[in-house]
């Protein structure tokens, strides 16, 4: 704060601070307070707003607790998001390691370009591409049938499709933090471990992963939050049996017309995500400031 004033002078520093505070207030604090307020009030016709029945209670949240299907979808969303994060980690770690430690600058450039190009396209369109690939009469089934690996088309859409679509969508959010972390590992440490007789898995377990811990935690937290809050992938690649909690929230808002209950559901999802993030960070012994970097 003092640095800010020293560097930019009183006027400009005050402007900066005001802008930041305005942003935080209008974009973060106000919407969440509104959501909280919505979540606590009953869904009433306009005539009854402000009337005797318009009192705050936990009814909307209790509704979720007592509704078995929604509860099941909620917990499924949680563990499935964790699964998405784990699979993304397993996919990204070797790539990140290779890019950070072994790739030539040219290979690095090409690989990053190939990874980033798909992100020039809107997420919905990318997911639609997976929709086409995984379709019952789509190219994936055609290729697998042609190769003789399956004898009839497989219905990929559902849990598998959602997983594939999400892992694909969030690769960069996992890859880049881990890449950054591993990139800063001195190569001589890996050489030293090899020289002392360590096999590759031990080098990773004892030297690389401890060093990259903050990056791995960051990637997992990002991916988990994005997956838990994702709507497009489950909506397009899922099936009636693989509903995501975000779809339930969407339905309360736009089909059930009950914004209050939708807000309550969203609030629960938010609280849960926060809890998972904090627990993960505690488990990895990483603090939020490291993640922010």
């Amino acid at each position, binding site marked *: 704060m003092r640095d800010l004033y020293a560097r930019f002078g009183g006027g400009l520093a005050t402007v900066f601070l005001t802008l930041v505070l305005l942003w935080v207030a209008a974009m973060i604090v106000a919407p969440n307070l509104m959501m909280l307020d919505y979540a606590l009030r009953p869904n009433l016709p306009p005539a009854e707003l402000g009337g005797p029945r318009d009192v705050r209670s936990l009814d909307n949240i209790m509704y979720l607790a007592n509704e078995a299907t929604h509860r099941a979808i909620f917990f499924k969303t949680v563990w499935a998001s964790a699964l998405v994060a784990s699979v993304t980690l397993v996919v990204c770690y070797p790539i990140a390691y290779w890019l950070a430690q072994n790739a030539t600058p040219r290979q690095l450039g090409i690989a990053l370009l190939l990874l980033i190009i798909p992100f020039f396209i809107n997420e919905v369109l990318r997911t639609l591409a997976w929709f086409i690939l995984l379709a019952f009469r789509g190219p994936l089934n055609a290729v697998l049938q042609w190769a003789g690996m399956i004898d009839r088309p497989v219905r990929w859409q559902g849990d598998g499709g959602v997983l594939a679509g999400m892992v694909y969508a969030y690769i960069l959010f996992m890859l880049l933090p881990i890449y950054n972390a591993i990139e800063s590992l001195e190569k001589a440490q890996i*050489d030293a471990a090899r020289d002392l007789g360590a096999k590759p898995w031990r080098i990773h377990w004892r030297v690389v992963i401890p060093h990259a811990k903050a990056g791995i935690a960051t990637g997992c937290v990002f991916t988990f939050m994005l997956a838990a809050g994702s709507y497009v992938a489950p909506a397009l690649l899922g099936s009636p049996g693989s509903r995501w909690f975000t779809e339930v929230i969407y339905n309360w808002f736009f089909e059930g017309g009950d914004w209050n209950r939708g807000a309550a559901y969203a609030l629960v999802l938010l609280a849960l995500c926060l809890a998972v993030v904090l627990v993960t960070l505690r488990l990895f012994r990483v603090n939020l400031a490291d993640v922010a970097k």
Partner: protein
Amino acid sequence: MSHSVELSGIGMTFGTTRAVADVNFKVEAGEFFSILGPSGCGKTTILRMIAGFIHPTEGRVLIGGEDMAGRGPNQRPTAMIFQSLALFPLMPVWENIAFGLEARGVGKAERRRKADDLLRLIALEGYGDRMPGELSGGQRQRVAIARALAVEPGVLLLDEPLSALDLKLRQHMRAELRALQKRTGVTFIYITHDQSEALAMSDRVAVMSAGVLQQVATPRELYENPATPFVARFVGETNAIKGRAVASEGGIVTLDTPLGSLRGRGSVAAGQGATLFVRPEALIPGGGALTAQIDRVDFEGAFALVHGRLGDGSALTASVGSTDLAHAPEPGAQASFGFAPEHAVVLADA
């Protein structure tokens, strides 16, 4: 158990760059052997080939008489001490030291015991539970040595491990390394660009330049009988005077130079271009073949260095012992210097 290391016709080409060309030498078991050369001369490449991090494009590496072709660094009886030390910063000191044992499946209690033994050896008893970041440079240095010794290597490879230390500590660590080598009997191969380090510690020294081995000899031999002009210039201070050989007799070559006729040891055929090298301490002030205009006299304690300019404009450095300082020439004066032919070396120009 220490091993010999033999390089046989070894060469390394990276893309189109030839980093090392046809190097042959044999390090005896239990020897303290240094590879000396300026940065980029290929010495680190050689060390990494011995360690097994890279594989030579030509020739063979034999350790203890066994061909190491196709063997990785974890399958060789070598241990390396890296220039950056490469301690694992997230492990306590004792785990660092015991890492090689851990990789060999040694149980935890035994590892801890071994680590404590080694900590005693390097005089850091009780430091096992500290983190490497809490140690001083010299202590980290010793931990790196202990970590390498923990796996009981036959050959210890040291890649300029003292370069990050300050002068006092460096001199202290030199003596310590030398003593440790004598005590353990392990073959040491030591890489350095610092010639005084190589001369002071080693049994023998290999001098490299631009990927080519120049000479392998004892420090004294290297200093007194350099085999190539590069070695003469790189090892120790010297004065170089170019000329042409006019006669060679009984191991003494007579050289015709712009400064007159000079004589030194060597075997150069008459008529060939050659250079005479004479050390500053071999130059005796007062009467002789070389007359110089004295620029300055630098007092160094045990001796003083007299810097001057010869008749053809080239620099001349002579050293005068402190006890003879009364006879040293004054700055601004003309002085002449002589030397005995057996204290000068004549080498043919490449």
